[in-house]
């Protein structure tokens, strides 16, 4: 009896120990834990979709907004003693 099993829990499919899966009441699947090339099967969503790192563009968008604002200010020439050049 192999100790590592494929389980389904909390909307995910992953490899875990049989004892832990039993204790936690996770659904034990009759599926391989390793791929044909010998590497362990990666964790996936319950429907088999690959997990992707959570990404957000909010930070990048904010940076860009800041840069754009700075660029606008830079493009205006500094006022001289005679006033601005406009």
């Amino acid at each position, binding site marked *: 009896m192999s100790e590592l099993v494929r389980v389904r829990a909390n909307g995910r499919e992953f490899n875990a*120990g049989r004892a832990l899966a039993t204790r936690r009441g996770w659904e034990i699947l009759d599926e391989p834990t390793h791929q044909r090339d010998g590497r362990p099967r990666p964790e996936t969503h319950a429907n088999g979709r690959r997990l992707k790192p959570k990404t957000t563009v909010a930070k990048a968008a904010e940076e860009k907004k800041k840069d754009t604002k700075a660029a606008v200010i830079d493009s205006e020439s500094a006022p001289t003693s005679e006033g601005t050049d406009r």
Partner: protein
Amino acid sequence: MTQLPMPATTATWGQQSYVVLSSAPASLTAITAAELTAGENVSCYLYGDWFPTADTEGVSRARKACQTQVTQAKGNTTWQTPPLSYSANPQTIDTPGSAGNEAYEVFVPDSTVYVVKFIGVPGDEAPGATDAYQVLPLDLGPRVWAPSQDDAGGEASINQAAFFAPGYSAPIDGVIAA
């Protein structure tokens, strides 16, 4: 002459907490409180301290014809994770959920686990919201039984090699999200 005040420090003795996640959190830098609760707190199973270390090698720059001295520059950094050493009960390991084997059951050889390490959090308490942590995705080696290394004769313990899981090469810092 005035004496400088000592800076505030954080104790590590008894102030380390380790939670093991069997399933990948949605974000490694912002593990949620719910994901943490679903993990296994192994702080009272692990022996001693468990701190990953890093070696950074120096690389020599190529000497120019006019030079007689060369400088060293920063080279590769290799992070190492020490073996995990934890207690387990050899006569009851075949019974799932048996007392004292919680760490044994979560550290399954050949599996990937996410060890969330809190420094400065009491090990016998559950880490809470907004606690800062280091998370290490680990690929686990085989379990090796050994007596624990203490002077009282030793408890049955397991030493288990741990390496960074494919795709990771260093601990990742984060803060618990709500």
